[in-house]
C-alpha cells in the first residue's frame, strides 16, 4: 500500500467509523432527542443520571405535564396512581437538590408543567456534589458516547433476554428487595448544605415562575428510626425555609400514618418503601391531594398562574 493511500484510507475509515456511530445513535434515538417522542415509552436502562438528563430534553416535556422531584425514597412511587396529571418521576438514587435542579432545568427549557410534587427530606439537602462526578453532559453525547453506548448495550440485552428494564417509562424504578432485618441504627445528617438549599430554592422559583403548582411531600421513615430522630426531623422540617403558606404539604410522618410506618414488612430499609408499599403511599398521596386540594386541582392553568 502506498503511504499516501494509507493516510487517506485511515482518515476515511475514521470518518466512516464516526459516521456509523453517530448515524446509528441518531437512528436508534434512545432518548427521543432527534425524532418526535410523542406517545413513545422510553425509559432508563442502566445509568439514570445521564439517561434522565437526555430524556428531559424532549421526551418528558412532550409526554408529561407534571413532575415528581425527589430522591430515592420516591423513586418507586407509582406515577399512574396520581390521576390528576401525567407525572414524570425525576427521582434519582442518592440524589441531591443540585442534581434534581439539573433535570428540572432541562425539562423546563421546552416544557410546561401543571404540578410538581417536591420532596423535602434531609438527604436531598445535605450535599451538592454531582454523584459519579457527572455534571451536565454535553448534548453531543447523545450522538455517541460511553454513556450512550452503555444505555444501548443494556437496552439491547434487555430486549434479547425479554427481561423488562427495572426502570419505568414514567421515570420510576423498582426497588431491590429487602436484605433482611431493618437497620434501626441508621444515621441521618440534618444539616442544610447551603449550595444544595440554594439550588432547591432556585428550582422552586423556576417552577413557580413557569406557573407550576407546587405540592410539598415529606416522605415517611420507618417508625422506630423516625422516633429515634424525631426531634431532629421535627426541627429540620419546622425550619424548612422554602415552602410558601399557600403551598400544600403532605406529610407521611404524621401520627395518622404511624401504624403504616411501623409495619416492618413494608420497608426495604428505613427511608425506602417496598414497591407494593410505595404504590399504596402513592394512592394515598393522590387521595389526600384530591381531598384537600380539590379546589386547586379544578382551577384552569390561567387562574392558577394568578394565584
Amino acid at each position, binding site marked *: *500500500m*502506498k*503511504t*499516501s*493511500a*494509507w*493516510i487517506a*484510507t*485511515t*482518515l*476515511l*475509515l*475514521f470518518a*466512516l*467509523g*464516526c459516521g*456509523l*456511530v453517530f448515524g446509528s445513535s441518531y437512528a436508534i434515538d434512545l432518548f427521543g432527542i432527534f425524532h418526535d417522542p410523542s406517545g413513545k415509552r422510553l425509559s432508563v436502562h*442502566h445509568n439514570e443520571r*445521564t439517561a434522565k438528563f437526555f430524556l428531559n430534553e424532549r421526551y418528558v416535556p412532550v409526554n408529561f405535564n407534571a413532575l415528581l422531584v425527589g430522591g430515592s425514597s420516591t423513586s418507586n412511587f407509582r406515577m399512574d396512581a396520581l390521576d390528576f396529571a401525567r407525572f414524570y418521576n425525576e427521582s434519582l438514587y442518592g440524589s441531591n437538590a443540585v442534581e434534581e435542579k439539573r433535570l428540572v432545568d432541562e425539562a423546563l427549557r421546552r416544557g410546561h408543567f401543571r404540578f410538581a410534587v417536591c420532596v423535602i427530606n434531609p438527604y436531598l439537602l445535605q450535599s451538592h456534589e454531582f454523584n*459519579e*462526578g*457527572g*455534571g451536565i*453532559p*454535553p448534548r*453531543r*453525547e447523545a*450522538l*455517541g*458516547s*460511553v*454513556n450512550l*453506548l*452503555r444505555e444501548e*448495550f*443494556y437496552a439491547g440485552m434487555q430486549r434479547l433476554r425479554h427481561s423488562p428494564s427495572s426502570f419505568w417509562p414514567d421515570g420510576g424504578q423498582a426497588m431491590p428487595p429487602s436484605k433482611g432485618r431493618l437497620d434501626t441504627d441508621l444515621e441521618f445528617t440534618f444539616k442544610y448544605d447551603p449550595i444544595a438549599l440554594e439550588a432547591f430554592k432556585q428550582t422552586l422559583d423556576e417552577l413557580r415562575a413557569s406557573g407550576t403548582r407546587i405540592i410539598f411531600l415529606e416522605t415517611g421513615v420507618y417508625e422506630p428510626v423516625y422516633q429515634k430522630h424525631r426531634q431532629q426531623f421535627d426541627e429540620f422540617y419546622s425550619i424548612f425555609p422554602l415552602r410558601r403558606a399557600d403551598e400544600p404539604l403532605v406529610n407521611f410522618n404524621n401520627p395518622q400514618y404511624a401504624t403504616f410506618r411501623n409495619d416492618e414488612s413494608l420497608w426495604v430499609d428505613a427511608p425506602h418503601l417496598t414497591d407494593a408499599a410505595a404504590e399504596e403511599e402513592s394512592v394515598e398521596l393522590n387521595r389526600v391531594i384530591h381531598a384537600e386540594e380539590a379546589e386547586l386541582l379544578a382551577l384552569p392553568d390561567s387562574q392558577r398562574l394568578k394565584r
Partner: protein
Amino acid sequence: MLFNSFSYILLFLPAVLIIVAVAKRRGGPIAAQVAILIASIIFYAWFRWTNLVFLAASVLANWYLAKRIAGAKDETRKRWLQAGLIANIAYLCTFKYVNFLLGSLPFMHGHEHLIPDLEFPLGISFFTLTQIMYLVDCYERVVKPSSLFDHATFVSFFPYVISGPLATVKRTRKQFRNFGGTPGAYAPMIARGIYLFSLGLFKKTVCATAFSQIADYGFNNAVHRSSLETFIYSATYCFQLYFDFSGYSDMAIGTADMLGITIPRNFDAPLRSKSIIEYWRRWHVSLSSFITTYLYTPILRSFGKASLPKAMLATFLAMTIAGLWHGPSWNFVIFGVLHGVALALNSAWTKKSPIRLPGWFSWLLTFCFVDIAFIFFRSPTLAAAMQMLHDLFSVHHALSTSNLTAMRANFSWPIFGPPIAVGVATAFFGESSEQMAQEFTPTWKTTILSGAALTVAAVFMNSQISATFIYFKF
C-alpha cells in the same frame, strides 16, 4: 488545549500541518519554523494566556545565560553555569515548593494566609529541565548557544512543552530545517505520526479511562479494603498512569513526526521489566536519561573515586530528588526514596550476588514493588497512603471482595471490560506503541487498527469522563 480534544484533532493540528507545509513551500524552512513558533505560542496560551509570561521569561533568561556561558572562559564560565542552574532551580521552586516548605514549618500552622498562593505555570517542570540540560550542554561545549529564535522554538515546541518527552538541543535543533517535511520522506513520517497518535489517543482516552474507573473507586471510595482489593486498586492505578502518560507521549511524538521532526521516545513496555533497573530504562525514558546524565553522574563525580557504595548513595540521592521533582509532597519524596533504595539494592545484587532469580519471579517482584510505590504516588495524603499499605498487608480479611462487589453496581463491564483486557494484554505481552511505530509499514492491518483506534477514542472523547493528563500537574 488537550491532545485528546476535538478542537486539537479536528482544528488545531490539521490547521498547523497545512500552514507549516504551505509556509515551507512558499517561504522555506525559516517560514515553517516561524509558523511552528506561532502555533506553539497559541497552544501554550490556550490553557491560560498569563502563563506565557513565565515561559517567555524563562526562555529569555536561559538564552542570555547560554550566551554568557559560551562567551566566558574558565572560572567565569563555571560561575555563569552555576548562576544559571541556581536561577532555574529557584524559578521552579518558587512555583512548586514555596507552599510546601513554608507549610512544613511548625510556626506557620494556622497562618496559611501568610503563604503566597502562587499560580503554577503549566509545563514549568519540563521546560525548566529542558533548559537546565541546554545550559549544561553549552557549558560542556556539546552544543553552541542557539539564536533567540531557535531557542524559543526549541523550548516552546508544542508537542512536548507541557509534559515532555524531555528533548535535548543537540538532537532537536538540527532538525528545525525539517519542519514541514523533507521531499520524499515526509509522507512516511506523517503516516507514522498518525499511526502513533491514534495508538496514543486510544491508550489515553480508552484504556486509561477504563482503568481509572476501578482505581479511582479504590482510592477515593472504598473502605476496609482487603489485601486483594488493595493490590487490584494499586495495580489498576499503575496501568492507568502507564496508559495515560505513555498515551500522552505517543501523541506528542506522533504530532512531532507529522510536523517532520523526531523527538525522544519515552516508554518501552515498562510493565514487562524484570528488575527495577530495567524498569527505569523503560519508564519515562527521557526523565531517566536526565536523572542519569544530569543528576546521578555529577553527584557520583562529586564523591571522588567511584565505588559501589558511592554509586548506591548517588542513585539514592538522585532518585529522591527526582521524587521531589514530581511535586511538593512527602508522598513523592517517599516514592523517590523507595525507588532510590530499590535501584541501589538492585545494583548491588546484580554486581555481588551469585544468585539469579527465575525470570517470572523477578518480573513479579518488580511489578509488586512498582505497584506499592505507586500507592504513595496516587494517595492524596501520607495518612491515606499508610492506610492503603496497612490494608495491603492486613491479614484479617485478605481475600474479601466486598468493595469490588459494591463497585460493580456503577461499573460497566461491557464498556470498560474490553479496554481493560486489551490494556493488560498489551502491557504485559505486546510490543510498546513506540516500537510498533518504529516498525510501521503502510498495510491494511495498520490502517484498520489506526482507524478503529481513532473511532473508539472519538466515542470516549465525546463522553463526560476525565480528560486531563495525570502528568499535567507535575
